[in-house]
């Protein structure tokens, strides 16, 4: 029994004598919330910029205590640039200019410049996966601008711009015209046979002399290289197939009077199946949509069985159109962004073995049938159009 204390002493002794290598006091950490990766002007090295949170200033503004620094309020973040032969190298080189060690565990976004993306992002993804600090859940984006500049654009609502970008991505539900891609999602493409990865594209837009970040398009990667992009409509086409559509508006134009009807997406599923009996095989995409009649510019009452049926048909056509657009773009790029290959691998491994080798050329002329089922389940609060003039 008396030995117990000896033990504790021993434990403490070894502990104390061994010191504290991994100890990093909070106040000695530079919390990185965003990483931007550009090519260095010399074309060889990477130039990596970090958005580092300054906690004091983040909180300082919130309480409205004023005073603070007295003069011009500090920005709640600081953008640090560093260059290196690899991303990792650049991270360590950053300490030349930073008083604190960079801490990547709370990083939220990684913004990759187009040029870098065209060269291939495999080394970047590889590093992010291997290192213990970055997380699988951080968002990946591509930008045609300098990634460093993107990181410097202040968010109008959030204190920390990177958090702003992350939130901006997560509101994709509203339109389903942008795809949010995390490191985990993207890395999965690397291990999944021939599926092509995508990433959202972010850009600096200037409105009223103020710089604002805007999510545009979706970048398509072939293997690890940027190959092309999808616009909003094509992106939603892609999301339909993937079953990732969560919300958004489909605007229909009525053929008889040219009025517009907005259909709100409430629930959608997408399913891929393959018909493997015949060659060349056919893929089938089934999309199931539950929608809400959201608004109309015509005076006729659309809440009748026939009219709703008609609307459903129109919606289905619109969706088919979107998917077709995405499909043709994908065929043109030769990038299987829909994961047809993965589907074959999972459900028809035998067939997949057969097609594996020439999958890309096969994909380019793959026959895809699209089946869309639409159900308008709700019509909003009004039972007939809110018109100005009584009958």
């Amino acid at each position: 029994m008396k030995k117990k204390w000896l033990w504790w002493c021993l434990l403490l002794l070894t502990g104390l004598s061994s010191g504290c290598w991994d100890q990093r006091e909070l106040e000695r950490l530079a919390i990185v919330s965003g990483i931007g990766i550009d090519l260095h002007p010399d074309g060889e090295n990477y130039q990596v910029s970090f958005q580092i949170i300054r906690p004091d200033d983040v909180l300082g503004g919130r309480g409205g205590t004023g005073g603070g620094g007295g003069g011009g309020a500090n920005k709640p973040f600081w953008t640090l640039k560093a260059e290196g032969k690899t991303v990792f190298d650049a991270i360590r080189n950053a300490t030349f200019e930073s008083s604190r060690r960079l801490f990547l565990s709370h990083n939220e976004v990684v913004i990759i410049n187009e040029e870098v993306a065209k060269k291939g992002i495999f080394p970047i993804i590889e590093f992010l996966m291997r290192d213990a600090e970055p997380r699988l859940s951080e968002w990946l984006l591509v930008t045609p601008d300098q990634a460093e500049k993107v990181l410097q654009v202040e968010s109008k609502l959030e204190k920390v711009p990177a958090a702003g970008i992350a939130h901006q991505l997560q509101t994709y539900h509203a339109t389903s015209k942008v795809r949010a891609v995390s490191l985990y999602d993207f890395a999965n493409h690397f291990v999944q046979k021939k599926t092509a990865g995508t990433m959202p594209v972010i850009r600096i837009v200037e409105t009223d002399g103020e710089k604002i970040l805007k999510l545009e398009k979706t970048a398509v990667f072939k293997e690890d290289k940027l190959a092309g992009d999808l616009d909003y409509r094509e992106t939603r086409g892609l999301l339909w197939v993937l079953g990732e559509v969560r919300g958004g508006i489909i605007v229909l134009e009525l053929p008889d009077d040219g009025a517009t009807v907005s259909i709100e997406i409430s629930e959608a599923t997408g399913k891929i199946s393959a018909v493997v009996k015949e060659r060349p095989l056919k893929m089938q995409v089934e999309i199931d949509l539950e929608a809400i009649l959201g608004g109309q510019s015509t005076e006729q009452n659309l809440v009748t069985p026939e009219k709703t049926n008609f609307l459903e048909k129109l919606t289905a056509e619109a969706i088919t159109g979107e998917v077709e657009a995405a499909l043709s773009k994908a065929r043109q790029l030769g990038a299987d962004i829909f994961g047809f290959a993965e589907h074959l691998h999972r459900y028809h491994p035998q067939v997949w073995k057969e097609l594996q080798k020439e999958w890309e050329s096969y994909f380019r002329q793959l026959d895809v049938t699209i089946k869309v089922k639409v159900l308008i389940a709700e019509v909003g609060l009004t039972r007939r159009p809110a018109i100005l003039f009584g009958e």
Partner: protein
Amino acid sequence: MFRFLLRKLRLAQQFKENATPSAGYRLHKSLEENIALFRAELGESPDVAIRRFTLNLKKGIKAAIIFVEGLMDQQVVYDCILHPLMIEAKKETWTVDSDLLGFIQENLITASGLAQEDRFPPLVDAVLGGDTVLLIDGQTAALVVSTKNWEKRAIEEPDTEVTIMGPRDGFTEDLRTNTALLRRKINYPGLVFEQMVIGRRTRTTVVVAYVQGIANEKIVEEVKARLKRINTDMILDANYLTEFITDAPFSPFPTIAYTERPDVAAARLLEGRVAVLVNNTPTILMMPSLFIEAFQSPDDYNDHFLYATFIRWLRYLAFLMSFLLPALFVALTSYHQELIPTPLLISMAAAVEGTPFPVVIEVVAMGAVFEIIREAGVRLARPIGQTISIVGALVIGEAVVSAGLVAAPTVIVVALTAITSFVVPKQQEIAIILRLTLAVLAGILGAYGIIIGLLFTLAHLASLRSFGVPYFSPVIPLQVGDLKDVAVRAPLWAMWTRPQALEGQDSKRQNFGERVPSSIAAEEPDRPPSAPGKRKKEEKNRKK
């Protein structure tokens, strides 16, 4: 080290042999010599009174009574000894045969407690214990008249174990009162008190109490054996005993429980435990004691069982927090920042910004400061104590943060820990020790350090035994049946067995789940009245 211990042991043994020299020498025939004996033994203390008188029997025999003032009842001495011997004896004409003492015992002394004794030491004990010794010239034996009576505290509710519901009585310093309190709770002849005297100089009376037919006899024997082996000169408080007989003297975990409440003691006795009552202390000892007992408050059994279960879980949580929270805080802030949600991390980083010390030091120092404040508050008179805590907690806490010496989250954590540790007062000391050790370990090795510390503690707990019963039972080793008073507080009618861990006799309290069903037939309004024939049939069915 071992050699040293052995030598010590040997020394102790010699000591013991020397310690009992005067056993068994007897009284003389002459009264004066006997009085001289007492004088020699008891000295000239003013509280020892020797009253000589003449026993008016036959031709008048010299006699004396010896007692200690303040420990005896003057009235009893007068009514039962002096008056009958000096006055009543004169009235009648007695025929006294040879056995004078026996005659006095039978005919004259009216006190309820009376005994003959011819050895000297027990007589001294009796005098010092408040009894009156009657010496008669020419007799080689004396009469011991029970006249014990001294100033006692009234029975009050104990401060240390306050309950909201339930009985309000508590043990007092007086042993007899305490045994009486227990008897009043358990009106069952199986409740056994066995008395012994421990402490060479304090001669403290100690009573071992247990319920025959329930308590495990091996444990009872073990308790008695350990008590008998104690060889010290003073036992002033129950804890003196504890430290001598506890299983693991170096362990901070108490393997013997205390209580000041007769209801708790009675419940524990009926679970099959052994209680030890020590004279002059209001706390009684109960053994074997398990870790889990600290979480069982007497109020649990006075409340509804659902609520009691909920509260018990809160208590577990609070206990966990009370030793784990500072360590976790240290580990999270100085090692595993990736585990803190980002917004929280930012606020914490902002709070920590500019403080001069690492978090470990902050936590340990603030913990120490808190303990100091508490200690200062406890020892002082109550009103001042409160002032101290308010000044200490509010003023220092506030000032330390605004001066930028310590980060606000640290103060919050330390304060929270302090409060949680009061939820389980019986394990509070351990919580403090564990808390500081774990915090330091966390400061050295982060969460890994915590795990190491916890493993050590767990291993220690797993190896502890209290009078042969594994300390951590019924959790490890698992005894599912006993969990009904651990994981939950089952309804009383469902706690149909006594704790199995104690391995007592007669493990059944009542039949399983036996309650008293309502004797008023329940109306069944949700059923439509059916045809009389059918109804009868149904009733028949129900009876089956």
